[in-house]
Structure formats: C-alpha cells, structure tokens
C-alpha cells in the first residue's frame, strides 16, 4: 500500500509538470488558437537555462549554490517568455488565421531549436549575432534609401542572404580555435543536481515518506496555476487578453493594442513551458529531445480537458499523470498480488511506459466518443452564435 501511495505521489508530480506545460499550451492554443509544436522545445530551453544557472552558481560556494534553483526557475520563465515573444513577433504573427502553416512553421522552429542546442558554441553564437546585426542594419539602411521602390523586397532578401554568408564565414574562420568552436552542451544528456534542501524527505504522512522534490513540484504547479488564474481573471492585462481572444476586431476598436496583447499572451504561455522544463530537471536528465516526449501528452491533456478551460486542463493532466505512472510502473501488481491470472496478464501487458501511453490514448478515444468537446466544453448562448 505504501508503494501504491508513493506511486500516486510520483504520478501527481508528473501530472504537475504536465499541468505546467499544458497550461502554457492551453493559453497559446486555447486562447490564441495557435498550434505551437515548438512548445516542447520551449520546455527544453527552460531545462537548459536551469542547467546553465546551476553551473554558474557552482563556483560560488556550497551555501550560495543552494539558492540556484529559485533563481533558475525565475530565469527559465523570463528567458523562455522572451524567446516566445521573439517567436510571436517574427513568425507566428504573420501566420494568424492559417493554422496549417502555423503548424508546419512551429514544427520547423522546434527542429531548429533542437539542433541549435546540440551544436551551439561560442563561435556559432558570434556568427549568428554578426549575421543578424548585419542583416538588420542593412535592411534599415536600405529601407531608408530605396524603401519605396518595387524591387526593394528582392534586394532586401539578397542582403539577408549576404549577411547569412558573412555569418557562415565568421563561424568557419573560428572553427580551428578549439575553445570557441566546441559545443556548449552537445547532443548528450546532462544532469542537473537538485539543491540539498530538495533532496531527501520532507516528512511523513502515516508511514509514507514525502520526497522533497515531488512535493516541491506539486506545490510549484499549484502556486503557478493560481497565479495564472488570478492574472487572467483579475488583472487588467488578463481582461485585455480575454477580450482580444473572444473578439479581436472589436477589442481593437475599443482601444486595446491587440499586437501587444498577442505578444504578452504568447510570452506567458512560453514562460510556463520554461518553468515546466526547469521542473523536469529535478525528475530526470536534460537532453535536446526532452520536449518531444512531452508535447503529445500536452496536446492530449488539452483535448481531454476541453479547449480553453483551465479546470479541465488541471483534471486531465492529473488523470494522465497518474495513469501513466501507476499503470506504467506496474505497481498495481505489487499492491494487489492476488489478481486472477487473466487480469494479471492484462495489467502486465500495459506495465511499460510506452504501453501505458497506449492505454491513455485508448482512454481518450473512448472518452471523446461520449464527450466530444472534452470534460468542460464552453456553454451558453454565445457559443452557438
């Protein structure tokens, strides 16, 4: 029984990570209607931010090192939110109302981000910065000189190609210098060691130990969820976000700067992904492919919970997290050793990580037959209109 409870706790902590990531996705997808396949990679970025912060804190001595994790959480939020805003301003903004293109473009972004993390090095960073700087300055200059000419777009494109070439040359010229050209992270998995105050037990309930990491993750996600709910329902920006997502044109006519609202909404969703990524580092190692494992689960949570409903997201992620952890680990067999052989075979069959995912899929498919719009579909006069 103890094992069963600790397995439930395990499931709840996985559910909490899922909840953080899915809340971010629910904001981006449910409110803005953007299918962001790069959401998992934003989680991955958050995890790498945590790794970097940990390494920056290491030389500062053991006492200060204990504090790295809260700093990493905040930085993970801020940095991924900034990446999200950049993504929205440069790419997704141009694709509103074109879901298929958005899907493909964000998938492309996810591939770029994965490879970027694998191969980024100091020389590469310098090359990218040089190319972007030349490109931006060049296009500003050209816009001023020949911005009204019909061939401006073509010349501008040529100029960007030219700056890309310069960037490549810069990278290659530094390739012989080992220190500059060796990748920062590489393709391998990296480990983040949790601070001491998170390791070990945080007390007992009855005979069940409460592992600090798991309890912390659960508390973190509850705290952030309440924060997000407060922000969306009570703050001025939250009201603007809700207005814009429900009636963009009229919101614009009322004086709401819709483009800034889009950036903030997307930034918030991305930032939550970053925090989820930072939380994942406590549960396992950090690798470039970390995001791909979670993105599907996130979308399943949203479909199951009902689009645009945060309560549904909460319940759905708890259900999925617990099913995955309890069934996937096979602990049902240990708790109930005397099951009839036929049932035992079934339980054993699903007792692997991938088969438990299959079970979740079956569960969702059956569920959607009865409730096609998820657990909490939107109701009322305005939905039909």
């Amino acid at each position, binding site marked *: 029984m103890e094992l069963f409870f600790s397995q439930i706790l395990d499931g709840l902590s996985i559910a909490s990570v899922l909840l953080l990531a899915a809340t971010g996705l629910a904001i981006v997808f449910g409110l803005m209607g953007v299918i962001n396949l790069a959401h998992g990679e934003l989680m991955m970025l958050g995890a790498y931010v945590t790794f970097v912060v940990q390494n920056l804190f290491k030389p500062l001595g053991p006492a200060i090192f204990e504090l790295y994790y809260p700093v990493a959480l905040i930085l993970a939020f801020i940095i991924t939110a900034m990446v999200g805003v950049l993504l929205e301003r440069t790419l997704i903004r141009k694709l509103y109302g074109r879901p298929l293109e958005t899907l493909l473009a964000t998938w492309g972004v996810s591939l770029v981000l994965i490879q970027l993390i694998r191969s980024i090095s100091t020389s590469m960073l310098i090359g990218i910065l040089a190319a972007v700087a030349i490109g931006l300055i060049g296009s500003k200059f050209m816009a001023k000189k020949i911005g009204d000419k019909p061939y401006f777009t073509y010349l501008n494109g040529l100029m960007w190609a030219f700056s890309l070439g310069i960037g490549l040359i810069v990278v290659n010229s530094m390739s012989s210098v080992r220190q500059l050209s060796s990748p920062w992270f590489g393709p391998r998995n990296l480990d983040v060691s949790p601070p001491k105050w998170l390791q070990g037990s945080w007390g007992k309930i009855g005979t069940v130990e409460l592992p600090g990491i798991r309890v912390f993750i659960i508390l973190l996600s509850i705290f952030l969820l309440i924060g997000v709910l407060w922000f969306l329902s009570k703050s*001025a*920006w939250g*009201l*603007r976000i*809700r*207005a814009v997502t*429900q*009636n963009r*044109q*009229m*919101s*614009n*006519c*009322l*004086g*709401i*700067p*819709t483009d800034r609202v889009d950036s903030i909404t997307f930034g918030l969703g991305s930032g939550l992904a970053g925090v989820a990524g930072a939380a994942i580092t406590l549960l396992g190692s950090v690798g470039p492919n970390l995001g791909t494992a979670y993105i599907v689960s996130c979308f399943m949570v949203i479909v199951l919970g009902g689009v645009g409903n945060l309560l549904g997201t909460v319940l759905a992620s708890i259900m999925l997290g617990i099913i995955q952890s309890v069934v996937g680990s096979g602990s049902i067999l240990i708790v109930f050793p005397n099951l009839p052989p036929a049932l035992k075979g079934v339980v054993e069959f699903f007792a692997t990580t991938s088969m438990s995912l299959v079970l979740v899929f079956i569960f969702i498919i059956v569920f959607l037959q009865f409730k096609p719009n998820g657990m909490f579909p*939107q109701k*009322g*006069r*305005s*939905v039909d*209109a």
Partner: protein
Amino acid sequence: MTTSNILKVNDLNVYYGQSHILRNVDLSIPEAQMVCLIGRNGVGKTTFLKTIIGLLKQRSGSILYGDQTLTDQPPYRRARSGIGYVSQGRDIIPQVTVKENLLLGMEALPGGLGKNRHIDPIVFDLFPILEKFLGRKGGDLSGGQQQQLAIARALLGKPKLLLLDEPTEGIQPSIIQDIEIAVQRIMKETGISVLLVEQHLHFVRQSNYYYAMQRGGIVSNGPTENLSDDVIQEFLTV
C-alpha cells in the same frame, strides 16, 4: 457653416478585394452635431463606418479627424484619440461579464483600463438594466440589452465622435426610445458629435444633417429639415 468640423472625409474610395464599395465619398461632421447616413441595405454604410474606425483600409482619399490625418492608424489608436464605435453586430465580448465589458470601454481613456476602474454611474442612469446585470456574461444578454451595453461601453471611453451603426435594428420599441433619449442627452451634456447610420425614421429625424448613400456614393445631403418624404422614398424605403 461656421462651426469647425470634427471629421472631414475627402474623396474616399474603398474596395473589398476587386469590388469597388465606396466611390468618392465626401462627408463632414460639424462639432457637437448629429449627422445621419441613410441608404438601403448593402449600399456601403457599414463599410464607411468601418473605414473611419480603421477596420478597413481606404485605397485612396483622406480622413481628417480634428487636425490629424487618420490614414494608416490602427483602430486602437483611433479609439484612443476619441472615436467611439458601436458596431452593427454590437460585438459584446461574450464570455466576460457586463461589468468587464464596461471596463473594457475605458481602455480608450488615457492610462487604459489599468488606471480607470471606476464606472461612471451616468451609464446606469441612462440604461438602468445594466446595473442589474453587472455580474452576467455579456453573451447571455438579449439583443436590446446588448445594444444598450454596447452604447454604454462606447460612452465610457469619453469619445469626441461616436459612430453608431444601426443601433435600433431588430430591437423592441421601448428600448429604441431609451437609446434615442440617451444619445440626445449625452450630446447635450458633453457636446460630442455623432455619426448615425440608421433606417429608423424617428431617429433619423433627430439629426442635424443627413447624407444619403446609393451604390457607394453620396447622392444627396443637407440639413435634416430638407429631408423630404420624396427623398426618403427614393433612398430609404425598399
């Protein structure tokens, strides 16, 4: 005309894709006056209002608001410089409460809705029903109630020019009267200008000037006293 114009539209041409909707429209709205734009369905009246608030782009011509040119400004900037818009579909934000809808109206004020959280009670005086329904979802109100909410919301932004797109369309007579009285009273008390697109004759008669539109162009205009039954017969009745 001795008074200055709050809005002056010159030679405006608007297209939907390839089709030419508004043709060389000239129109001006004097300060503190009500101007009415009449015409049958589909002649381009709504298109005209949408172009003034900025939802549609003109292909040529100019819109002068006070002494600033509105060309190329996004709608939210126009709203913040004092143009209030009540659209034909009313466009209440459905899943937020009546109170929040009213708060959203104050986004056009300096500081936006972050700094302005007090709803001017005058709107409850004009439309008492709104105070009773403050906690309801905007989308759950009836058509007439939504119309009152839309006008109240626009008024809370303290506009200098109010654009009303068929505010009485499909609404029961008692509410039509409330709306007419409210618009009259606001004009008298605050000196704003109103551009009214309307088919309801009683309301049309209360304006100071009229413009009649046919196939995207202005075909007749003048003081409303001159709006004879013949003109109405020609441009309004189906």
